[in-house]
């Protein structure tokens, strides 16, 4: 993780590339990185927008089936006692006793999702999304997929980031906590990729390069075109090995000069997963986590480049007016 929106003079631009005199220099650079200014503020917004979008889609998709899934006579029979204990869990479990309160949870989740998308009171929006999300997960844990797990963990860390647009004093506790949460999100994302890659190493189909063919056979997921394409040896071998290499090397690539290309490949990878396998909500969360790694300085450069291109395009389109008399 590197960069900041407004780096104070003398602050390290990158924690990873900090050059100092041994351990003391590194500790000093780490302290300045954590304390001087909030990092990854635009990346945090990208992640909030991605999670908000994903949650809003979930609410729209699940609302027609809410009573069947989480209602008092529905599929779920889970309880919050496992995480909150018998006393508090027993009280909180009353929320599952009527369809009205289940729909209220979905409503609260939708409000939190919209707040995250719009950047409006993001701390409150994060809490408004996290609480009903966790309650619904406890009621029917079997309905949760990996995208939900990633979003829930990210929301927990996002509770500690600065609200959108906040201007805290450099060196304050708020800045420190924001940056610790930023590191936590980065480590969690790296953990997701590394764990996914390492788990695949235990499977013979990933190692012999035919895993993508088998993934494509799952009728519940794959697009008909994907089934045909995955029968091509080159496609399935490249897809299997590229996935394995990408996931295993992610934690190293993200702290190396390969970071931006790795993020770009990750975006394409998750767009493909969303399109070909239909794992749309999972892909949206993972795209948010990938975009989180772009630094504020790089977002600013991208913004200036896009604005320049836009102005140039407008200039070319503008018809030539009559010449001077």
């Amino acid at each position, binding site marked *: 993780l590197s960069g900041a929106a407004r780096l104070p003079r003398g602050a390290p631009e990158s924690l990873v590339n900090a050059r100092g005199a041994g351990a003391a220099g590194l500790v000093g650079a780490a302290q300045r990185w*954590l*304390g001087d200014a909030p990092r990854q503020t635009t990346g945090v917004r990208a992640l909030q927008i991605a999670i908000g979008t994903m949650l809003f*889609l979930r609410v*729209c*998709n*699940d609302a*027609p*089936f809410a*009573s*069947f899934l989480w209602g008092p*006579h*529905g*599929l779920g*029979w889970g309880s919050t006692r*496992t*995480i909150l204990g018998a006393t508090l869990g027993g009280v909180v479990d009353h929320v599952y006793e009527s369809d009205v309160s289940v729909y209220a949870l979905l409503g609260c989740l939708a409000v939190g999702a919209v707040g995250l998308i719009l950047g409006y009171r993001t701390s409150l929006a994060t809490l408004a999304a996290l609480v009903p999300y966790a309650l619904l997960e406890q009621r*029917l844990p*079997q*309905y949760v*997929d*990996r995208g939900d*797990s990633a979003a829930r*963990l990210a929301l*927990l860390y996002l509770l500690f980031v600065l609200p959108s647009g906040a201007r805290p004093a450099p060196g*304050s*506790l708020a800045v*420190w*906590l924001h940056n*610790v949460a930023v*590191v*936590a999100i980065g*480590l*969690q994302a790296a*953990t*997701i990729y590394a*764990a*996914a890659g390492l*788990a*695949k190493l*235990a*499977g*013979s*189909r*990933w190692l012999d390069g*035919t*895993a993508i*063919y*088998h*993934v494509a*056979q*799952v*009728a*519940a*997921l794959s697009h*008909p075109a994907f089934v045909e394409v995955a*029968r091509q040896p080159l496609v*399935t071998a490249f897809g299997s090995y590229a996935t394995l290499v990408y996931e295993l090397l992610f934690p190293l690539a993200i702290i190396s000069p390969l970071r931006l290309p790795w993020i770009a490949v990750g975006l394409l990878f998750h767009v493909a997963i969303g*399109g070909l396998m*239909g*794992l749309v909500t999972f892909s949206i969360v993972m795209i948010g986590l990938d975009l989180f790694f772009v630094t504020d300085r790089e977002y600013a450069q991208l913004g200036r480049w896009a604005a320049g291109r836009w102005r140039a395009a407008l200039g070319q389109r503008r018809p030539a007016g009559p010449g001077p008399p």
Partner: protein
Amino acid sequence: MQWRDPRHALSSVAKAAALCWLAGHFLLITLYLLPPWPPRQAVRGLLDLTVGRHFEQNWSLFAPDPIGSNFALLVRGLDAAELAAVAREGLPADRWYDLSAPLWDGFAQNRLTAYERMSSLQLRGVLAYLQEEPAEWAWAESCRRGDPTSCALHAAELERLRLPATIQLVRFASAFYADLGLADQLSYVALRLRETRPPPWSERGAAPELVDIDLGVYPIERGMPRSGLYVGERAN
């Protein structure tokens, strides 16, 4: 300016605590995600209490190997007369409904729906039903060698382990018959798993293999709300 010092000290303590939490948290997560080995097993209780309870995660995405097979849940409602016939003649051959295929078709037509998650929910129930704990292997082996006590113990333990998955699958079936408006006319549901095994990579042009596994007959669950997933289906 005296008040600033305690405040500064508190802030420093909070900053140090945040760093300690970060280091400890990711150490625990790393241990939690590692395969069982002695250091992990030594702190298993702590891992379950911390990461397992509040930061639960499992990133085995299509790992160690993708499942590949398609598991469809088939159901057949039974009234009292049909249930009596099952004991004599076995399960009927007709009027089985595939509860998974409509979800797969719906999801293929529109990716922005809950159908994929619903079919995954069915799949998890089926896989949980079929999964046998390693602790049960010894009873199963002993049963295969002809020990009736081991067979009885194995059967009782399997029933206990399968109970949550069974409840979920029966509820799915009951909600389906509620969608059809037939739930009140039926007293039991038979569950069947249809596994479509794709050919191995070396024979990828060949036809898939179909395997049916009966999961048992259970009382229908009354009072289930309509799922709304199968409202267009017709009783045949």
